[in-house]
Structure formats: C-alpha cells, structure tokens
C-alpha cells in the first residue's frame, strides 16, 4: 500500500472522520473497512524504520515494524475489528469514533520507534479511552472516568518526565532496552507500571472498566494494559524485579475475584491475574519467556475480549451483571452461554484451548530458569483462574439457581463477534504453530506432551472438585451485593476523610484570621469608598472653579520646580 504510512494514522484519522459518515449502513461499512485497510497496510510494510522526522533536535522514528511490534500490531487489529462488529448496533458517533481512535493510539504506541512518539500516542490513548467510560452518561460513570483519567494522565506525566531525563542523559530517543539505574528509567518504569496495573497501582482498572459502556469495556480490555506489556517487553525485558511483581499480580486478585459480585469486575480482577503471567514472562526475559509473554498477550486479548463480550451481552439484555441477580440464563441465551464457556475454557488453559498453548510457554521458561517458587505460585494462580473465571463466571451468570430472568438471545452481530473470537481461541489451542510462527523469536515448542496435558487436567479437575465441594457444603462465599475494599479504599475514603479533617482545621484557622482581619480591611475599603466611591471626592463631578484651581496649582508647582 502506501509507503511508510503508519497504520495507526489510518485508525486515528479515519476515526476522527466517523461523525461525517452518514449513520446506518454506510457508516457500518466504513467502520468495518478501516481495520481491514490498516491491516493490509501493516501486512505489506516490510520490517524496518519508517517516517523518520527531525524535531526538537532529535531524530524521531515514528514507525518501526519488527518481530515484537508486529505480533502486537496484528492482535490489536483483530481486537479492533472484533470490537467494531460487536458494536455495530450503536448509533453513537462518539463511541464509534473513539472506538477507532483509541485502538489507533494503542497501535501507535506499539509501532513507535522512539520515546517521544511513544509519549504522544500514550497520552492520546489515555485521553481518548476515557470517553468510552463517559459514554455511559451516568454520574457514576462520569466520576469513575475522572478518576481513570487522573491516573492515566499521571502515567503520561511520569512518562514525559522520564523521557526527558533519559534523553538528556543519553541524547538518544530510540525506544530500546532501558534500565532502572537512572531516575529517568525508573520514572518510565512507573509510567508503564501504572498502565500495566502493577499491584498497588492497579485500582484504576477494577474501578473504571466495569463502569464503561457495554461495548466500551470490550474495547478497553484489549489495549491499554497490553500496550503496557509490549512497552515493558521492549524496555525492561529481563528485569528481575518484574518476576516478583508479576507473581504478586497473578496471586492477589484471585481472592478479590472470588468474593466480587459484579461479574465484569470479576473479569477485571482476572485480567490483573493474567497480566501477572505476562509480566513474569517479561521479567524472566529469555527468548522463550518473551515469546510466552507475547503469545499470552495475544491469546488473552481474544479470550478476555470474548468473556467481556458475553458479559456485555448479558448486561445489554438483562440490565445487570451482578452474580446475585443472575442465574439460569442458559435457557434464554444458549449460544452466548456456549461461547462464554469457550472463553472460560480458554482462560483456564484447558487443553485444546488457547491459553494452554501460551501460558505454558511462560511456565516452562520459569521452570527452565529455576524460578521454582515463582513457578509454584503461578501454578496456584492457574488453579485460581479456573476457579473464578472458568467456573464462577459461567456458573453464576448462566446456571446456578434460576433467577427467573427470561430475555432474548444476544443480537446477531454480537454473536458473530463472539463466535469469531471463540474460533480464534480454539484455533490457537488446536494449531498453536500459526501463532508461534509470528512470535518475536524462533520457537520450537510442543505443548501437547502427555505430561503437560495430564498435569493440566489434574489441576483443573481438582480445582473444579474444590469448587463443587465448597458450593455443596455451603462454604463458598455467597454472591452478595457488597462492595469489596481494595487498596483504592485508601485514596477514595481514608485520604479524603483525612484531607477533610485537615481542611476543616485550616478552614477554622483561616476563619479566625479573616475575622480578626475583617475590621481593618473593612476600614480600608470604607476609606477607599469614601474617597473613590461614586459620591467620593475623587469621583464626583467637580465645580469648574475647583478644576481650574487644580490647573493653577499644577502650573505653580511646575514653575517652581523648573525654576529651582
């Protein structure tokens, strides 16, 4: 196609033009065409650097295609295409436009060859994505969006500061391996960490994603965190710290996910858990591990998208995704149920499903490098995933006790999108070779060994058994309408309360200062008013004689002054 044209620009410019395309069939065709065009452009671009510009005295590579960026770019295209199909029922130009601009920005991040370009797309992704939350147009969504935007912009600011320091130290804006030895590197690391939802920096994700629109959450789930994984893989591959961070990430959300009632929020927690696996892969940093991180990101976008889509369909049809209100939906939405089960099986790494072929790369790399403790934790986390995402989601939504809700099956275009995603999940599981072929490094790995399959099946069986026993004995935490206290309780409750107390104290002092100062200030104002007010000496209309007197006074003063 066009030489050196950044596919991200096709998305962004095309997205900006959406409102000008007449609504209805024409716009739907247009929306579907853009990802396809962009994909053709990406596919025909040879590997290398393009669109090199000189600005701020730096050489900026705005488009770089290599093995690592290519695999992310491909899956971003697939995700964008699927989300467009999923959202075909929308008649909201804002969501449709942002639904292309935001993926475009994420694509720009992945294809950025230098840190300055990276920053620009990074911020664009942050700012554009918030509209997907606001598009729900409720007060609650507005506030969640503001909190989300605050965190995202904070990440952008950290990134900018880090980039400036880094470029000053090295005078090299190329986005390559970075280190934590310099302040610049640390700041960039933190910026990536926020987007990647590192533990303690993660709350924005669970806070904001479930508040977005039905389609918005599907779009959001695919890009922001995965582009952060890409950025970490590019900049901090092999950083030991990431192994610890990733392990914690994979572990802690499990407990929250088990007790959470809002099923989209459960998925948000499980997203955190899946990201943990990828972060571990990046931290290990061997070719196998990086392949694993990229492959798992690829698979995760698809199966997590599938799960969010199915929950979105439930939300669309029933108006709720609270586990306590749902149940028995398999009667009304059999196809959605089936597709959701495919997603659940994929995320749980059932043999023949996608995560089985991708997560194992990371586990294998951890084992090879001798990170046994980490390996054990990840194994436990795998069981946990099956528990909360693989069983809990379909169980409470579609089975469990019958809630009596009878609704329509999901709309056809949603079913198509979900089916495509489900096919891809199965495809990766059945023929992992195709995915392995586009991974950053050459890979010779066979997931379907007897040991692997049996270990995994054992793990899953016991996990399922545990769930069954807990449900039967009534020990399993029931689905309650409740709010889970996560770390954000600190900054959404404790800090504001403390700040309010502090403010009240200051306010009291301030009031006292004002009270004591009021009288003198009032006196000054009164004096000013007496002289300058409408009836004051300086403002009222003077008799002509007095005016002339002033002329005489000034003339006399001038004469005296000039004589002396």
């Amino acid at each position: 196609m066009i030489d050196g044209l950044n596919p991200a620009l096709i998305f962004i410019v095309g997205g900006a033009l959406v409102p000008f395309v007449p609504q209805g069939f024409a716009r739907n065709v247009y929306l579907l065409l853009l990802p396809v065009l962009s994909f053709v452009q990406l596919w025909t671009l040879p590997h290398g650097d393009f669109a090199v510009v000189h600005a701020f005295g730096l050489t900026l590579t705005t488009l770089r295609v290599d093995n690592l960026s290519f695999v992310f770019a491909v899956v971003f295209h697939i995700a964008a295409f699927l989300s467009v199909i999923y959202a075909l029922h929308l008649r909201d130009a804002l969501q449709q436009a942002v639904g292309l601009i935001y993926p475009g920005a994420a694509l720009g991040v992945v294809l950025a060859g230098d840190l300055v370009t990276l920053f620009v797309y990074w911020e664009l992704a942050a700012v554009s994505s918030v509209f997907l939350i606001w598009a729900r147009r409720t007060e609650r969504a507005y506030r969640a969006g503001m909190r989300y935007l605050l965190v995202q912009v904070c990440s952008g600011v950290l990134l900018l500061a880090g980039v400036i320091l880094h470029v000053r130290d090295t005078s090299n804006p190329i986005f390559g391996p970075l280190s934590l030895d310099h302040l610049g590197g640390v700041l960039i690391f933190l910026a990536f960490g926020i987007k990647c939802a590192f533990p303690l920096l993660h709350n924005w994700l669970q806070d904001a994603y479930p508040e977005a629109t039905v389609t918005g959450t599907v779009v959001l789930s695919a890009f922001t965190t995965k582009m952060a994984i890409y950025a970490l893989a590019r900049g901090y591959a092999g950083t030991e710290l990431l192994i610890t961070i990733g392990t914690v990430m994979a572990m802690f959300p499990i407990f929250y996910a088990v007790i959470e009632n809002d099923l989209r929020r459960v998925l948000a927690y499980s997203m955190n858990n899946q990201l943990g696996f990828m972060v571990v892969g990046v931290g290990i940093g061997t070719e196998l591990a990086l392949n694993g991180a990229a492959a798992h990101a690829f698979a995760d976008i698809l199966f997590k998208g599938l799960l969010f889509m199915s929950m979105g369909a439930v939300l669309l049809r029933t108006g709720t995704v609270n586990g306590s209100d749902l149940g028995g939906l398999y009667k009304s939405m059999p196809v959605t149920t089936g597709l959701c089960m495919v997603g659940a099986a994929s995320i749980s790494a059932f043999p023949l499903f996608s995560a089985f072929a991708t997560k194992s790369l990371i586990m294998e790399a951890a084992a090879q490098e001798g990170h046994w403790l980490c390996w054990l934790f990840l194994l436990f986390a795998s069981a946990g995933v099956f528990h909360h995402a693989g069983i809990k989601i379909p169980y409470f939504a579609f089975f469990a006790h019958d809630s009596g809700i009878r609704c329509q099956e999901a709309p056809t275009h949603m079913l198509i999108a979900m089916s495509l995603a489900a096919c891809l999940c199965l495809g990766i599981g059945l023929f992992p070779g195709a995915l392995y072929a586009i991974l950053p490094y050459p890979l010779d790995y066979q997931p379907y060994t007897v040991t692997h399959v049996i270990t995994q099946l054992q793990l899953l069986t016991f996990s399922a058994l545990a769930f069954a026993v807990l449900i039967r004995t009534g020990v399993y935490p029931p689905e309650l309408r409740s709010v889970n206290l996560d770390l954000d309780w600190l900054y959404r409750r404790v800090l504001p309360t403390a700040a309010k107390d502090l403010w009240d104290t200051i306010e009291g002092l301030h009031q006292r200062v004002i009270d004591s100062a009021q009288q003198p200030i009032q006196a000054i104002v009164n004096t000013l008013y007496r002289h300058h007010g409408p009836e004051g000496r300086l403002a009222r209309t003077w008799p002509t004689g007095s005016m002339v007197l002033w002329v005489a006074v000034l003339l006399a003063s001038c004469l005296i002054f000039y004589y002396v």
Partner: protein
Amino acid sequence: MDHLPALQVVLPLFCAPLCAVLGRANLAWMLALAASWLTFLISALLLHEVLQQGVISYAMGNWPAPLGIEYRIDSVNAYMLLIVSAIGAIVLTAARPIVDTRIRLPENKKPWFYAAYMLCLTGLLGMTITGDAFNVFVFLEISSLSSYVLISTGRDRRALTAAYQYLIMGTIGATFILIGIGLLYVMTGTLNMADLALRIPQVSNTRTLHVAFAFLTVGVGLKLALFPLHLWLPNAYAYGPSVVTAFLSATATKVAIYILLRMFFTLFGAEFSFKTMRLDLILLPLALIGIFSASLVAIFQTNVKRMLAYSSVAQIGYIILGISLASLTGLTAGIAHLFNHALIKATLFLALGCVSFRVGAAKLERMAGLGRTMPWTMAAFVIGGLSLIGVPLTSGFISKWYLVVGALERGWWPVAMLVLLTSLLAVIYIWRVVEVAYFKPPPENEVIREAPLALLIPTWALALANLYFGLETSLNAGVARQAAATLLGVTP
C-alpha cells in the same frame, strides 16, 4: 500622490460643510463615511511611504518653510494618523443607528452632527500632520470646539454641563498651549517645528523658555487628561453619545499625547526635557497616582460608561508612565499603548453603545443577564476587557509587556510591580460587568434583542483587531519602536 498630506486634512474639512448643507441625515452619513474611509486609505498610504522612504515634507500652498506652513510626516505622526483615521472610520461606520435614535437633535439638525464629526476629525488629523507650532493650536481649537458640540448632543441632559465644563477646561488648556507657543516664538522668532528644534538650544537657559515649558506641560496635560487635570473627562465621556465617546476616547487624548511627545522630544529634545528639566519627576508620580486613583474610582462606579472613562484616565497614566521612562523600550511601550488603548476603548465603548441602544442606559444593574440576551455584544465586551487587563494573546498584553520590561531596564522594579498590581484592579472592574451580565438572570418582563448588525459588525471588527494585534505585532509594536527611535534620535 504628492498631495496626499494636504488631502489628508482637506478632504474631511471640505466634507464638513457639505454634510451640513445636504440636509438629509442618511446622505450626510454616507458622504462622511466615504470621506473618513478615504482619509484612512490616505493615512495608510502615507505610513507606507514614510516607512519606505523616510520623512515627507510638504509645503502648504508651495510656500517654503519656515515662512509657509510645512506638513512634516515622520514615522511618529504617520502612525498617529493611521490610528486616528482608522478609529474615525470604524466608529463612523457604526454611528448611524445611534445617531438616528439616541442623540438629542431634531431630525433636520442631524446632518450637523456629521459635520461636527468631520470637523473634529479634521482638527485631530491636522494637529498630527502639521509641522508648524501655531498650526497645532489652530487645529486644536477646531477639534476641541467640534468635540464640545458632539458631546453636548448626548441624550442625558447632564451632557450639556459636561460639555460646558469641558469647554472651559479645554479652552484654558488651549490658552496655555498658545501662551507656551507664543513665548517660544518670542525667544526664537520662528513657528516651524524643525526650525524651533534648531534654535531652542541656543536660548535654553532663559527663564522665558522655562516658563514656556511649564505652560506647555500643564496645557498639554489638561488636554490629555493627566491626573489631576482629568476632571473634565469622566462626565464628558459618560454623558456624550456612545459613538462620540468611542471616537474621542480613542483619538482626542491620544493626539494630545502625540503633541506632548512632539513638544518635549522633538522641539525641546529628550536631553533638555528629561535631563535638565527633569520632566520625568513630574510625569512619573502623577502617572502612578492617576493609575491607582482612577482604577479605584472605576471599581466603585455604577455607571459603566463612567467606569470606562475613569479607566481611560488610568490607561493614559500607563502611556505617560512609559513616556516618563524616556528610554527606547519605555517610549515604545507608551506609543504602542496609544494604538492598543485606542483599539480597546473603541471596542468597549462601541459595545456599550450596542448595550445602550437596546437597554437604554449603561447602568450596571441594567446589564443583568445580557450575556444571554446579547451574547455577541457581551462577547466583544469581554474581548475588549481582556485586552484592557492585558491578558496574553490580546493587544493590551503587548504594551503592558514593554512597559514592565522598560521599567525593569531602568531598575525601577517597584514601578514594574505597580503596573502588574494595577492590572488586577482592571480585572476587578471588568469582572463586575461580566458578573452582572453573565451570572445574573435577565429581567423577566422585558425582551432584549441582540444589537443590530450595523453596530455589531464594527464592534466585532475592533474586537478581532484586539486579538489580531495581540499576535501580529509588527504594526503596534514594530512601528512604535521605530517611532520611539525617531523621537529619541537613535537607530531602533
């Protein structure tokens, strides 16, 4: 093309009696309008020629100077001519609806309004263009007498006393100027300015010359409304018709300031005025007190027109402050503010003209809710107000900037601080209008419509000019710098 300097003055001069005899207000307006736009064109051509080729000297009636009257145009007065003729033309464009409905003249006398307007324009242009000191006095009288007439046509009956007071004070000022010029003539035997500039140094130590200097200081100070000689101004501006106020506030005081520049920099020389006579020691304190006092009065005013009149006194203070710095930057600031303040005040007073056209009076409480009922008018007012405050991206910022830089160059940082501080006072009095117009609900029982386009378009042209010259500063700051350099006799 050679006779452009003469045409600049003669065109409006001949137009004035024609307007009077035409007998129909609309015809008179159209004639005056054509003449004023032509004078604007001429002044633009003159400025272009001066910037290209340097000083133009034109001997009136072919009588060579110093005997005959010489018109002498350099970058300073070419720049002034442009300001005066531009404001004159734009304000006149907006004048018709207001003259038709809001001045106190019988219908058959309305052409006389345009005649007076043309005469006033003639006087102001003549004062600016001439190179002859006595000729300055003659044109000063032409412009002053016609401006008294213009002010007295205001609807409010207080316009008559205001015009009367202005007449007394203006006449005293003109007399003082005449006395000053007379004394100079006695000492040097010439009235030609260039000639005077050569001969004054020979007699610079005489008492007579010092007295002439004092009379000129006070006389010009009166005409330009230097604090405390400003007392005629607030009522004259407040009670005159809005178009007249817009025109006079933007041009009359500015031309008086030009006379001050011409007298003290060209005739006496910057060296003599500021080193020997220490004119700055008189001007600087008066300017500062004027800025403070007038701004405070403006804050407490309830008549918005009067508020802006006091604000004009304060703004003149800024110009005088820049001049009293007597440095290239300071003078640039003063001259640039001549231009910018003319734009600002013409915008604001025309916007008030729109308001009083619909609402009746420019009282603060009558402006409640105008942000909703007259959005375009109030938006123009806000732009003018921002420029008055000196917000970046508006033309007012340019002059404030040079002023602060000029003060800092001289090491007078308290002055710089005061300039910034008094800008805050402008924020207060502009905010009072904005608050009433945008945050109070409009009165329920009356319907207020947006002003007619004939008023809105000139107002917006001026408002946009405020923004344009805040970005493109080659005219207001670039030419001002050249003019300052000409006055100081240095290369810019």
